[in-house]
């Protein structure tokens, strides 16, 4: 077993001290947006004014679940779907810590869906970043709970026939204190949402739409990561404080449909303190 020392590599990026830089380049594909979210998270840690020693990152399983392995704070790569209760244990035992969960749509909303609705209902003091790439990327592109109707996956070769979750609507209905949806192109905005979440007591939820060129983009004729990001640039419509969350489903197939992003919910609701 080799264990590199921190001195073995030079600092080459100003945020390398918040990354486990000896593990870069990471395992994620070229054009994948998960790296941008990880980058945004460490930027928020840096700007939070809270000592990185007091930040904790927890993830589940899948490509997004690998986030915890790259950030240089106390980090835990838990089991599939269980990042939220694992993080709850940390946050409830030690309320001084800023606990962020970074995980994917399949992890948080399918296998971990029950924990999601209850963590939001309790309003546990957690900052949740859900990287939504509309499919199970690591296992090769199966459809999941956010796959839009008609979009293809290896387990829905003719296109998904199921209604997907509309995550901001779900999070708001469950009682989240903060709800936002952005894409990786809106990197300043989602980083600001994450920063705001770190400062806020209660359950905060930011969905970040992210390209998965290898598994989802290729199969759905979205092209490379850049092409999917371009699609977001063309179709995204910012509506901060949008009241009609129930109407904000994402239609990937119909390119005429706008995708609404923004900071939707930011309310005061008593947070869970055991």
């Amino acid at each position, binding site marked *: 077993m080799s264990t590199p020392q921190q001195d073995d590599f030079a600092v*080459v*990026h*100003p*945020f*390398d001290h918040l*990354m486990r*830089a000896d593990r*870069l*380049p*990471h395992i*994620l*594909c*070229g*054009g*994948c*947006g*998960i*790296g*941008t979210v*990880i*980058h*945004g998270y460490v*930027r928020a840690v840096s700007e939070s004014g809270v000592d990185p020693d007091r930040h904790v990152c927890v993830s589940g399983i899948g490509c997004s679940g690998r986030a915890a392995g790259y950030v240089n704070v106390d980090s835990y790569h838990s089991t599939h779907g269980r990042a939220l209760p694992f993080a709850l244990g940390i946050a409830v035992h030690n309320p001084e810590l800023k606990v962020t969960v970074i995980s994917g749509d399949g992890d948080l909303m399918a296998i971990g869906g029950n924990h999601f609705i209850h963590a939001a209902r309790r309003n546990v003091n957690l900052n949740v970043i859900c990287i939504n790439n509309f499919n199970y990327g690591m296992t090769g592109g199966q459809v999941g709970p956010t796959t839009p109707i008609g979009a293809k996956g290896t387990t829905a070769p003719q296109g998904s026939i199921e209604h997907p979750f509309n995550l901001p609507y779900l999070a708001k209905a469950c009682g989240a204190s903060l709800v936002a949806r952005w894409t*990786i*192109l809106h*990197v*300043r905005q989602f*980083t600001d949402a994450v920063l705001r979440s770190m400062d806020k007591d209660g359950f905060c939820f930011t969905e970040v739409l992210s390209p998965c060129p290898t598994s989802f983009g290729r199969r759905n004729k979205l092209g*490379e*990561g*850049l092409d999917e*990001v*371009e699609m977001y*640039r*063309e*179709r*995204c*419509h910012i509506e901060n404080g949008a009241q009609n969350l129930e109407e904000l489903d994402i239609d990937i197939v119909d390119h005429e449909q*706008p995708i609404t992003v923004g900071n939707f919910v930011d309310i005061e609701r008593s947070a869970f303190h055991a």
Partner: protein
Amino acid sequence: MNSADSVARKPMDLAQADVPRGEVHIVAERCKECSYCIVYCPEDVLVYTEETNAKGYHYPMIAEGKAEACVLCKFCDLICPELAIHTTDASDEAQGS
């Protein structure tokens, strides 16, 4: 809505504005050729190299004649999924001269 075809509005005091100047730093070995930095640079500062890094990806370099064109918007840095590029303030004040 954003559109590539829209006509950009130009500030009336543009001539007097003090446009920041940045210096681009590239970590070639981290790059996976996603193009985000090249495409979203407002000043078209970056182009791909001919050669590839150890993993076989072309990585960005400063385009000919663009050495002083970076306006320090930092977007290439922010959007880079690999932490493979960043910019520093290259204005005269920042250099301490």
